[in-house]
């Protein structure tokens, strides 16, 4: 004799169904909510990155910054230009926002030389008269500070690409990064090569048609419209080329290394 076990599926009353679905839904809701909260707490207290070229950010957030950089670098193009304006739109009272690296009062503009590392050992030494010989490029663009303010400013100088061509630094320009620092080495920036070679990147010696003033980085400063102001180094002392990220002042303080616009 065979017995058939009949599976009886209990028919739930609406009340029971409601209870059951309430239970499952709210349980899921609170479990996932708790997990999200836990994840957030973890991220908020995640360990800080090991200080190196970049420092001061938490490990996962630095990773995210670097990943976002990779994504947006795909969209970067030398054809994408910062918008330019007529000269009369430029500010006459140009904002000064920092003096790190240019604080020494005994700095002598006349004895200033730009040192460029060429090849393995050679140091190219260039003075202002040399630089003024090179083709001059002017730009009136909206300067953007990482703090969030912006100002239309008028600068002129030699395009970095023209400088590189003139001084036969084409081999160096095949490397991945450019590093620049103030003569005292206290402020320094690292730039990815494609941003450095952007047609609007200028070694500037004039502001509003006049020589750059000391607080704006005389005699020669970097104007790089595809970057935040923090990368627009004042008073360039040295330029070097590298395949590794050169040190960068603000990237050591938790800021994005790329800081591209």
């Amino acid at each position, binding site marked *: 004799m065979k017995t058939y076990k009949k599976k009886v599926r209990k028919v739930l009353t*609406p*009340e029971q*169904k*409601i209870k059951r*679905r*309430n239970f*499952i*839904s*709210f349980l899921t*809701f609170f479990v996932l*909510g708790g997990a*999200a909260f836990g994840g*957030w707490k973890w991220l908020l207290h995640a360990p800080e990155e090991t200080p190196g070229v970049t420092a*001061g*950010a*938490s490990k*996962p*957030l*630095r990773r*995210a*910054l670097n990943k*976002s950089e990779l994504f*947006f670098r795909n*969209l*970067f*193009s030398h054809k*994408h*230009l*910062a*918008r330019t304006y007529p000269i009369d739109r430029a500010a006459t009272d140009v904002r000064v926002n920092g003096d790190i690296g240019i604080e020494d009062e005994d700095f002598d503009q006349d004895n200033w030389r730009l040192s460029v590392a060429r090849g393995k050992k050679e140091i190219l030494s260039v003075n202002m008269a040399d630089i003024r010989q090179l083709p001059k490029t002017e730009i009136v663009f*909206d300067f*953007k*500070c*990482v*703090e*969030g*303010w*912006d100002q239309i400013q008028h600068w002129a100088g030699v395009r970095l690409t023209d400088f590189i061509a003139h001084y036969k630094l084409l081999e160096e320009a095949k490397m991945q990064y450019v590093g620049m620092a103030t003569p005292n080495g206290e402020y320094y920036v690292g730039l990815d090569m494609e941003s450095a070679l952007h047609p609007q990147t200028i070694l500037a010696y004039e502001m509003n048609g006049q020589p750059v003033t000391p607080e704006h980085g005389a005699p020669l400063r970097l104007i790089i*419209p*595809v970057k935040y102001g923090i990368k627009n180094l004042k008073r360039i002392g040295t330029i070097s080329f590298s395949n590794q990220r050169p040190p960068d002042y*603000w990237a050591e*303080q*938790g*800021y*994005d290394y790329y800081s*591209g*616009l």
Partner: protein
Amino acid sequence: MKIIKEKHPLLTRWTHWVNFPLLAIMIWSGLLIYWANDVYTITIAGHRIIRFFPDWFNTLLNIPQRLAEGMAFHFFFMWFFFLNGLFYVGYTLISGQWRSLLPNKHSLRDAWQVMLHDLHIRKTLPTQGKYNAAQRIAYTAIILMGAGSIITGLAIYKPVQFSWLCWLCGGYHFARILHFTLTIGYVLFFFIHVVQVIIAGWNNFRAMVAGFDVVEE
């Protein structure tokens, strides 16, 4: 007899509740960023009515001196905020949910009557579907605002690579103002939304978590 009536699809609920903490994080990290250049005020006839933000507010929320951290959070969570929004919009369009969400030609008039009703001026409500006319307008507007935040955000995040977008937003300076204003809009929306949800009661709230309404038949 009580019966179950399905109301909100799973994906609608999911994206709604994922958006809540994401938006909170975006607003918080946005505050950390905004602090570094906190110049916005509401000034009427020379009188400063509101300053964004007073010192007590910044101190209370521990905002000062955290720009780098704010940027790092903002540019991480922006991806999820964007993807979640995209997911919601995509689902709403494909599933046909948009039919009950988008305003129609009666919505403006009806929304007015809903508001009068909610303010206890009018006794009756116009007929409605899943969402009343005011909700249709509000829930569509908030999505447009979200799109606005993404667009203005991108305009100030990569103003050179997306210079056309920046131009579309009235330039870098104005795009930042728009981006900020939209955020204030979210905060106002949030308060009204929460009050309305509390007033609407348990059945309505449960529908946003469990997906169903209980109706008597």
